[in-house]
C-alpha cells in the first residue's frame, strides 16, 4: 500500500480539469499504453499566457494526481514560467510522492515540454533548462529522485553496489523512469575498477606497493625459488630488484615484469611501470 499524501488522494479522487479542450493551442503527450502510463495535456494559450489546461490520463493514482495538479499549476502562467516547471515541483506541490512513483511527475513534465515545443515549434534540447550545467559530483544523475553523482559513487565505493539494481536499492536512483540507467552503469564501470585505487599520497603509495610486493607477489615468486625487492618508487615508476632464480633468466625476467606490473596496475594505479634496478 502506497503512502499517498492527502493532496494526492484529493487529486486522484476528484481530479481537476479532466477532458479535452476543443481547438487547443497546444497538445502534449507522454507515456504509452504499453508502459502503463499515458498523459495527454491540452493547453489554451492567449497572448503568451496559458488560459486553460485540461488532461486525460491512463495511469495510477499518482499519475492522475500529478496530471491534475499540473493543470492547476499551469493556468495563469506565461509560457516562460511554464517552461521552468520541473517534475520535482509537480511532486512537491502534491506534498511529495512515494519514491517508486516519482516517474508520474516526470510524465507530467514531459507532456508539458511536448505541448510547449509543439506550440513554439521548437526542437532544441530542453534538458539544459532543468539542470544547471555543472561538471561536479553534485550533478544530478537521476532526475526523478534528484540523486547526485556523488550519492551514486558513494553507493558503489562505500556500500559495495556492483550492479544497477544494487545502486537502485541503495539510493532509489533509476527506480522510476530508468533513463539514467546508462549513466549509472558507466559510473559502476568506472568506480568498481578504481574503488581499490583511492587517491594516495606518495608515502601511502610506497607503503601500499611495498605491501603488495611482500604479501602478494613475493610468495608467488618463492614457489619458483625466486624473489623480489622494492628499491624505489618515483611517481608511477616502480624500481625493483629480482633475486634468486629469476634474476638469472632473461625470459623469466620479462614474464616477471609483466606479472608484477599487472598486479600493481590492478591494485594500485593503471599508470604504473615496473623497471628493474
Amino acid at each position, binding site marked *: 500500500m502506497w503512502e499517498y499524501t492527502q493532496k494526492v488522494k484529493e487529486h486522484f479522487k476528484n481530479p481537476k480539469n479532466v477532458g479535452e479542450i476543443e481547438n487547443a493551442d497546444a497538445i502534449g503527450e507522454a507515456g504509452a499504453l504499453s508502459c*502503463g502510463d499515458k498523459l495527454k495535456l491540452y493547453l489554451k494559450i492567449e497572448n503568451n499566457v496559458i488560459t486553460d489546461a485540461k488532461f486525460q490520463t491512463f*495511469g495510477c493514482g499518482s499519475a492522475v494526481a500529478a496530471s491534475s495538479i499540473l493543470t492547476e499549476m499551469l493556468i495563469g502562467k506565461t509560457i516562460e514560467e511554464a517552461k521552468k516547471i520541473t517534475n520535482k515541483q509537480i511532486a512537491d506541490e502534491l506534498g511529495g510522492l512515494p519514491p517508486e512513483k516519482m516517474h508520474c511527475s516526470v510524465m507530467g513534465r514531459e507532456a508539458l515540454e511536448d505541448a510547449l515545443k509543439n506550440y513554439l515549434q521548437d526542437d532544441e534540447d530542453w534538458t539544459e533548462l532543468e539542470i544547471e550545467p555543472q561538471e561536479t559530483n553534485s550533478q544530478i544523475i537521476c532526475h526523478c529522485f534528484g540523486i547526485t553523482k556523488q550519492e551514486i559513487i558513494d553507493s558503489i565505493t562505500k556500500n559495495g553496489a556492483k550492479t544497477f539494481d544494487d545502486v537502485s536499492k541503495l539510493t532509489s536512483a533509476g527506480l522510476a523512469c530508468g533513463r539514467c540507467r546508462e549513466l549509472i552503469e558507466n559510473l559502476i564501470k568506472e568506480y568498481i575498477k578504481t574503488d581499490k585505487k583511492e587517491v594516495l599520497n606518495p608515502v601511502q603509495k610506497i607503503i601500499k606497493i611495498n605491501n603488495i610486493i611482500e604479501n602478494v607477489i613475493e610468495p608467488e615468486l618463492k614457489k619458483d625459488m625466486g624473489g623480489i625487492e622494492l628499491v624505489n618508487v618515483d611517481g608511477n615508476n616502480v624500481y625493483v630488484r629480482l633475486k634468486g632464480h629469476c634474476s638469472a633468466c632473461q625470459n623469466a625476467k620479462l614474464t616477471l615484469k609483466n606479472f608484477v606490473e599487472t598486479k600493481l596496475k590492478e591494485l594500485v594505479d593503471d599508470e604504473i611501470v615496473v623497471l628493474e634496478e
Partner: protein
Amino acid sequence: MNVYLDNNATTKIDDIVFEEMTAFLKENYANPSSMYDPARVCANAIEKARQEVADFLGAEDKNTIIFTSCGSESANTAIKGILEKTDKKHIITTQVEHPCVLSVYESLEKKGYSATYLGVDENGELDIEKLLSKITPETALVSVMHANNETGAIYPVEEIAREVKKIDNNIKIFVDGVQAAGKLPINLKDTLIDFYSISGHKFHAPKGVGVLYVKKGNLFEPLIHGGHQEGSLRAGTQNTAYIVAMGAAARLAKANLDYELTHVKRLRDKLEKGILDNVKNARLNSKSQNRTPNTTNIGFEYIEGELILLYLNDLGIFASSGSACTSGSLDPSHVLRAQKTPFTSLHGSIRFSLSRYTTEAEIDYALEHIPSVIKKIVQISPFQKELKALGM
C-alpha cells in the same frame, strides 16, 4: 459494507482455528521437545495436527508432513534440498510460478544451474508434450504449480508427474500447492508427486506456518540445520500454536471443499458474469473453465489497475491487481504477460478472489458498484475513441 475479495493474498483466520490455537499461546507453552508432561501435551497436539494435514492432502501417513514457517520456506526447502542431493543441474519450470519459486531458480542460475521456463497459452494453459520434450539426462527437477495465484489456472500436476517419471524415474517433482489447498481435491498418495508445499494463511490459518509434503524415499538436504525437530529435517523449536492452527485449518478445509467447489464457485461465477455483462471494456483473463473455484481475473481495457483498486477501496471493496503500479516493481504481472494478455487490458487487470466467508450480499454490493467505478475512471482516460468503440 466491507467486501473482502482478496483471499488469494491471505484469508481471515477461522474462529475454530483461532480458538484451538490460543490454548497453545497461553497455558500450553512448554517446548514440545522437553521431557515433562506439559511438553507431552504440546507434542501430542503437533502430531494430531500432522495427521490432520496428512488427511487433508491425502498423504500416505503423517510422517510425510514437515511443518515450516511459510509457503516460501517450504518451496525453498524442497528446491534447494533436492538439488543438493544430486549432481544434475537442469530444472524445468514455468514462467507463471509464484516469485517464491521463480526467484529461487533465478538465483540458482547464477550458481551454475540451468532452468527452462515454459510458457503458457492465452488461457494460461501448459503444453505437457512441450514440457516432456525439454527433459534431458541432466534434468534433476520438474517444478510446476498446482494452481496459479493470479488467474486461478489449474495445472495437471498429477499427469505431469506421471509422464515425467515414465521418461526418467529419477527426476523429482515439486508442486507449489499454495493456491490449490482448500480449493481443489488432492490425494497425494495416489500421485507420483515427490514434494508439495502449502501455506496456512491461504486457507484460514494464521500467517507464519507452512507445510512441506515429502513422499517417502525422497532424500533432501534440510534448509535450516540445528536441532532434531521435524525428524531433523527442519530445525527450530516447533511453533505449537501455529502448527495446531494449521491442523485445524486443514481439517476445516477438507470439510468445506465441497462448499468451495459449489457455493463459492457459484458466487465467483455470478461476480464474473455480472461484471462482464455490465462493463463493456471488461475482458476475462483466462477463459478456461479449469480454474480454482474462487478466482477470477478481469482486465478493464484502457484504464489502469491501481486507480481501480483505489476507487474500490473507498467503497470498501478490496481486491488486488497484477498491475505494475501496485506492487512496487514497475513491470506488470509476469503471469498475465506470459499468457500474452493484450496491453490494452494488461495494466487494468484486477483479481477478485473469494472464500467460504464471502456472502451473496457482498457480491451483490460489489456488482452494484463496480460498473459505476469503472465508468468514472474511463472518463479520465485519453483513449476515448477506443473506449467508445467498445460501447463505453
